[in-house]
Each structure stands twice: as structure tokens, then as C-alpha cells.
């Protein structure tokens, strides 16, 4: 067992995380969190649906942004997937998906302002990068034979439609449906920066400590995600897609001169704008790298590595909740399965930011709340996917039960897909470290946010590019590890 590359790699990650733990600062320092937390949980338990002005509108907008964003992303991704073998396309896609939706939104907010286009593009662009990669992988795995036997002279489009697309269709559809759920979460989160979705009201009422409203908004959001399979039927999708663009709201008119100003002024480094030339640029860049980028990279990496392993451990504990091999298939099993499903929906749909606040109240500021918040959120997502994967496994009738079934039957068989998923999630966990400024942890995302709050887009852009490069680096490393361990990276396991 110890000779297996998979085991050695896993242990390597655990050892690295432990080493990170030694240098990271973990401490527990809160004194009396229960007054505030008591109010919070009481509020969540007594949701008040009447407290938000435009609740119906917020739900419609959340759905509309998700559908238009994911729709555009999927369409663009499909086109890009066809030319994915070009290095330039691959690099561009890697770059655009390495930037978090929130950062895209903050960038577009600079020049499109509060116009629906800001929210739509913030989802569509990174999603196009992800779709392109995954669609390309799915299409690559389809059998090349039909393409070789169709008559010479068949048009490119019909050839594709009748060969690779028709084979890959079920996989493409499953994956796109999964991304729709992600799109809903992204759409809600865009409310944090001002799009009129559920997140807008969630952030306001949470900031004000109006927890009964927070409870109502969260419940609605959970319900939306948990019932996705019921209302997002393939037959209804064209209807939703057609309706969605009309339901985005009108926002404020775009001033096109802001767009050119953004590119010709805002993102030009300050010394160049002041006419100081290269002589001024170097100290500016040096200062930015030494004081923000390097400490930011260090904290980001520490937090990411610890959170990654914590996510893995939590996933292994959570997946049985939604695995039929543990919940059972009959009536009682269905109820248990639905409960497990509900728990995972709550874990993965509660914004990390809210989790971080609760844990901060409990434990005081350090990396601990950040690690646990990230692990809960991502463990909820991967646990759900591993659980689904386990349902495709057929066990012998006399297979052992309980802990033996877990340790000797299922977990070993699921370990490959589990690792593959975790590696996919690696760069995502890294992107998510951005949002934890409340904990006083200066990750790269923290500095990006600071630069944006100070309205210094020249600095923000440099830091965003560094963040994107770091993400691309992790992505390459993850792919290398997947190949070395021969983990099938079929697209259906991409989170």
C-alpha cells in the first residue's frame, strides 16, 4: 500500500499541510460569542420573508443572471472547445478562468457600471474559459470512428453534429446542468458587489445583524438550489434562456467614454500616468511586489494548502450522507438520502463569507476560521459529487456493511475520482481565499480588494494578473499530478 503513488501523493499533501500549520497562525481568542451567535441562530430559525423590499424581483434577477451568464459562457465555451488545440486559445482560457467572478464584476463595474452587462459578463467570461476546457476534454474522449466514415464533402457543422456532438451529448448536458447550479451561486454572490440579486439583500441584512431576514434569504436560496433538478428540466431550458435576457432589469445606461478611460488611464500604472517613465515604474512595481504581492502569495499558499487537506478530510466524512450504499434504497433510505442531500446543499450554498463571520465570532481572528469555512463549503461540493459517483458503483449482494463497507469497499474505489475532484478544486479554493479580509488575513485577494476600494485600478490589475498566474501554476501542477497518478480526468468529475 505504501508503494502506491496515490497514497504517497496524498501523504505528501498531508505532510505539507502539517508543515504549513506550524508556520500559520492558529489561535482561539474570542470571549463571549454566544450573545451574538444566539441572535444569529434564533434569527435563522425564525425567517422573516416580509422584510426584504423586492424579494420576488431578487429571485428573478438571480435566475436571470445565472441563465444568461451560463448560457453565453456555454455557447462561447463550445466554440472555443472546437479550436482548443491552439496554444493561444488554451492559454487565454486558462487566464480568463483564473480570475474570480467577483473580480471580473469589480472590473466591469468600473466601466459598464451598474448595468446588467457587468453581471452577465462577470459570469459568462470565466465560465466560457471553464466550459471550453471541459467541453474540449469531453469531445476528445468521443470515439473518432464515426468521423472517419461519414461521406467525404459533408459540411463541418453536420459532421460535428452527427459524430462527436451526438456521442458526447449526454456528458455535455450533465456537465452544463451542473454548471448551472454553480452559476446560480455565482449570480447570488454578485449581489455582494451591487448586482440586484439575492446576495445584495443578504449582505445588507447580514451587515446590519437582521438575522431573521438573513434566515429567509438563505432558506430561499437553499430551496432554489435543492430543487434545481425539479424545475430546470431540459425541455424548459430553451424557454428559460429566451426569457432570461428580458428579466435582467435595466440598470443604468453605459457611458462609453468610461470604457476607453478605463483602458487608457485607470489601469496605466501611476508613474507612467504622471510621465515619470520607466525610472518611476520600477520603484512603484518593486514596492507593490515587496509589500503586497509577496506577502499575499505566501498567505494565500499557506491557507490554500491547509484548506485543501481539510476539505479532503471533510469530503471523506460527508460523502456517505448522499451515497445510496449507506442511506439505503427503500422508503426510509430515500428519506435519509434527502436529508443528506439537504445537509450538503446547506454546506455548499452558504456563502463562505457568512461561515467565516460565524467562526470568527466563535474563535477570534486567525487562519482557523478561514480554513474551516473553506473546508465546509468545498467539502459540501466535493462530497456531493463523490456521493453521486458512488451511486454508480454496484456492490455484491454479500458486501460488508457499515464501517467495513466504507473502509474496504467504497472509499478505495472512490479514492481516484475523489483525488481528481480535489485537484480540480485546488485552484478554486485558492481563488476563494480572496474574500476573507474580515479575518485580517492578508491574502492576494485581500490586497486586490484594498486596491479596488482605494480606486487604484493600476495596482489592482497587477495583483489580479499575479493571482491569475498563481492559479494557472496550480492548475498545471494539478494536471501533472492527475496524469502521473493516472486519475481519469473525465469532465464529469470536474467540479
Amino acid at each position: 500500500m505504501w508503494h502506491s503513488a496515490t497514497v504517497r501523493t496524498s501523504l505528501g499533501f498531508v505532510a505539507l499541510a502539517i508543515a504549513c500549520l506550524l508556520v500559520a497562525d492558529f489561535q482561539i481568542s474570542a470571549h463571549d460569542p454566544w450573545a451574538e451567535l444566539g441572535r444569529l441562530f434564533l434569527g435563522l430559525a425564525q425567517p422573516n420573508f416580509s422584510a426584504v423590499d423586492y424579494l420576488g424581483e431578487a429571485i428573478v434577477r438571480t435566475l436571470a443572471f445565472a441563465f444568461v451568464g451560463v448560457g453565453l459562457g456555454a455557447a462561447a465555451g463550445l466554440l472555443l472547445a472546437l479550436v482548443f488545440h491552439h496554444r493561444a486559445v488554451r492559454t487565454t482560457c486558462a487566464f480568463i478562468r483564473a480570475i474570480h467572478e467577483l473580480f471580473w464584476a469589480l472590473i466591469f463595474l468600473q466601466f459598464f457600471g451598474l448595468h446588467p452587462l457587468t453581471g452577465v459578463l462577470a459570469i459568462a467570461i470565466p465560465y466560457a474559459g471553464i466550459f471550453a476546457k471541459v467541453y474540449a476534454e469531453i469531445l476528445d474522449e468521443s470515439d473518432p470512428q464515426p468521423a472517419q466514415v461519414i461521406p467525404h464533402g459533408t459540411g463541418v457543422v453536420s459532421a460535428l453534429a452527427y459524430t462527436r456532438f451526438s456521442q458526447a451529448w449526454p456528458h455535455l448536458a450533465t456537465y452544463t446542468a451542473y454548471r448551472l447550479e454553480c452559476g446560480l451561486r455565482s449570480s447570488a454572490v454578485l449581489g455582494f458587489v451591487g448586482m440586484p440579486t439575492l446576495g445584495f439583500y443578504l449582505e445588507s441584512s447580514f451587515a446590519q445583524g437582521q438575522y431573521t431576514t438573513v434566515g429567509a434569504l438563505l432558506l430561499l436560496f437553499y430551496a432554489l438550489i435543492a430543487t434545481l433538478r425539479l424545475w430546470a428540466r431540459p425541455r424548459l431550458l430553451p424557454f428559460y434562456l429566451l426569457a432570461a435576457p428580458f428579466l435582467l432589469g435595466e440598470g443604468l445606461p453605459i457611458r462609453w467614454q468610461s470604457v476607453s478611460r478605463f483602458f487608457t488611464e485607470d489601469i496605466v500604472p501611476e508613474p507612467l500616468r504622471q510621465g515619470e517613465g520607466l525610472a518611476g515604474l520600477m520603484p512603484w512595481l518593486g514596492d507593490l511586489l515587496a509589500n503586497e504581492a509577496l506577502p499575499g502569495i505566501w498567505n494565500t499558499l499557506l491557507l490554500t494548502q491547509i484548506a485543501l487537506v481539510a476539505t479532503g478530510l471533510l469530503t471523506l466524512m460527508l460523502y456517505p450522507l448522499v451515497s445510496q450504499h449507506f442511506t439505503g434504497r427503500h422508503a426510509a433510505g430515500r428519506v435519509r438520502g434527502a436529508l443528506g442531500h439537504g445537509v450538503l446543499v446547506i454546506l455548499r450554498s452558504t456563502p463562505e463569507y457568512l461561515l467565516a463571520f460565524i467562526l470568527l465570532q466563535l474563535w477570534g481572528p486567525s487562519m482557523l476560521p478561514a480554513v474551516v469555512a473553506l473546508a465546509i463549503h468545498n467539502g459540501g461540493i466535493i462530497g456531493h459529487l463523490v456521493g453521486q459517483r458512488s451511486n454508480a458503483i454496484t456492490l455484491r449482494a454479500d458486501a460488508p456493511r457499515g464501517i467495513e463497507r466504507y473502509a474496504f469497499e467504497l472509499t478505495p474505489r472512490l479514492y481516484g475520482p475523489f483525488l481528481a475532484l480535489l485537484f480540480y478544486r485546488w485552484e478554486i479554493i485558492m481563488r476563494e481565499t480572496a474574500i476573507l479580509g474580515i479575518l485580517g488575513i492578508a491574502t492576494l485577494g485581500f490586497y486586490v480588494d484594498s486596491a479596488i476600494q482605494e480606486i487604484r485600478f493600476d495596482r489592482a490589475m497587477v495583483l489580479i494578473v499575479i493571482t491569475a498566474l498563481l492559479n494557472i501554476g496550480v492548475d498545471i501542477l494539478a494536471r501533472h499530478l492527475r496524469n502521473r497518478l493516472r486519475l481519469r480526468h473525465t469532465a464529469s468529475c470536474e467540479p
Partner: protein
Amino acid sequence: MLRLLSRALATALPLLFASSLAAADPFVFTAIPDEDETRLQERFQKVADYLAEELEVEVRFVPVKSYAAAVTAFRNDQVQLAWFGGLSGVQARERVPGSRALAQGVEDAEFRTYFIAHESTGLEEGAGLVEAMRDMTFTFGSKGSTSGRLMPEHYLREAFGEAPEEVFSRVGFSGNHSRTASLVASGAYQLGALNYTVWENEFEAGNIDADSVKVVWKTPTYPDYQWTIRGDVDGRFGEGFADRVQQALLEMDDPALLESFPRSGFIPVDNADYEVIRQVGQQLDILE
């Protein structure tokens, strides 16, 4: 299915752009009150209605999430009037030549920041910014806030001669004043700095336990929130429009409108009154 999908998308894109072109320009304003950011639309619609009546133009309120977003919307001419914080007002006026501060709240002429401490720190009420604070944990409010970030950082640097990151073992940004109060009250952070009106309102509302958290220092006064208008509104909405807006703001005396800010009334102010904020912003390298 695929065809339907592409058709849907083909309709979607032009629509998105088209909607941005159809513009019968109303007069748009935004506001970020220092507390209670909920039900903004409902509360500020009343203010919009009041302004529309006084100015005889169509007035629209647009909610935003952060000071930076407010400044950007103002700069991009998506909003023409904004209720800014001290710092964001300076940022906005620097970026939009000709824009001017019209009015501030009565309370804003002499604004303060309170430094608060959890009882476990052993710091007494009115202790001041003392050496004993070194190596404690500390939280600001939001990064772009005048009373939650700019002025407290200024006074901390003055007292300790160092950046807050050097003085304290950890420096966080709670996001807003109410959360600063709750994080220090629970002891999650030992120290915090916040807007004095928020503190006093929370105190009066009974949300703060006087035993667990104390005000250890009150800063000297400085100017804060103000209404700022773009310089080009006279050209768009008629000669003397900015002055009429100022008049309408100064005459706003309906408590139902004023409580949204929350202020007891508005008084005239001009750009020069915020010079002190600009200087501090430059010192702290937040302004260029």
C-alpha cells in the same frame, strides 16, 4: 435544442446593448448611509420623490454596495448626485473636475471616531491610545470609510508613530460599523474603531452591553458625510440646477426623510471644508 440555444443567445446580446442606448436621462442619485443599509430602495424612494417635486425633473435613486462603487458611478456619470463619506467625497471630486460639495449633515461638521475595547483588555473608559494596546487585535470598519478607517488610522499613526499592522498583532476590516461593534462586544477582536453616531444609536437601542465593551478614546472632530454634485448638471438640467438641488437639500426637514441618513438636517458646505480629509488621505497614501 442547440439551435434554440443559439437563437436565445442571438436575441440576448443585442438586447443587452440596446437597452443601454435607450436613454431619456433622469437625474440619478445614490447614497450609502452609515448605518442600516437595508430597505434602501424603499427609504430613498421618498427622498427621490421629494427631490423630483422640488426640482421638477424625474429623479431616480440607485443603491450601491461600497464607497468605491459610489465614486465610480459618480465618475462615470451614471449618478449625478451622491451622499458620500468624507473620504469618498474627496476621491469623487478629484476625479470629476467641477464637482462640488453642496451640503453636509448637521452632525457631520463635527464628526468623531470612537475607539472601543472589550472588557477583557482591562482598558478603562477614556484610557486613550495607550502603549498597553500594543499586540492586541484590532478591527477597522470598511476599507474606504472615513470614520472606520481613514481617521482612526491617522490617529493611531500619530499616537504610536507606526502603521497599525506594526502596532497590533492582527488588523481586520469588519466591513461596517455595526459589525465592528458586535465583533468587539464578543471579544472576537479586542479593539475596534467606529463611527460615533452608530455607536450611540446602538447603545441607545440597547444592542450594546456596557459591561463588556467600553469607549476608550474619542478622536478630535473632523468633517464627514456630504452631498456632492457633478459640475455638468447645470448644462444638462438647466442653469442654476446645482444651486436648486442645494436649496432643496437644505430645506429638507421632514423627519421621515432625514431618518434615512440618519441626520437631523443639512447645512451648507463647500469643497474647501474637506481639505483636512484630503491631506490625511495623502499622508496615508490612500489618495494620490
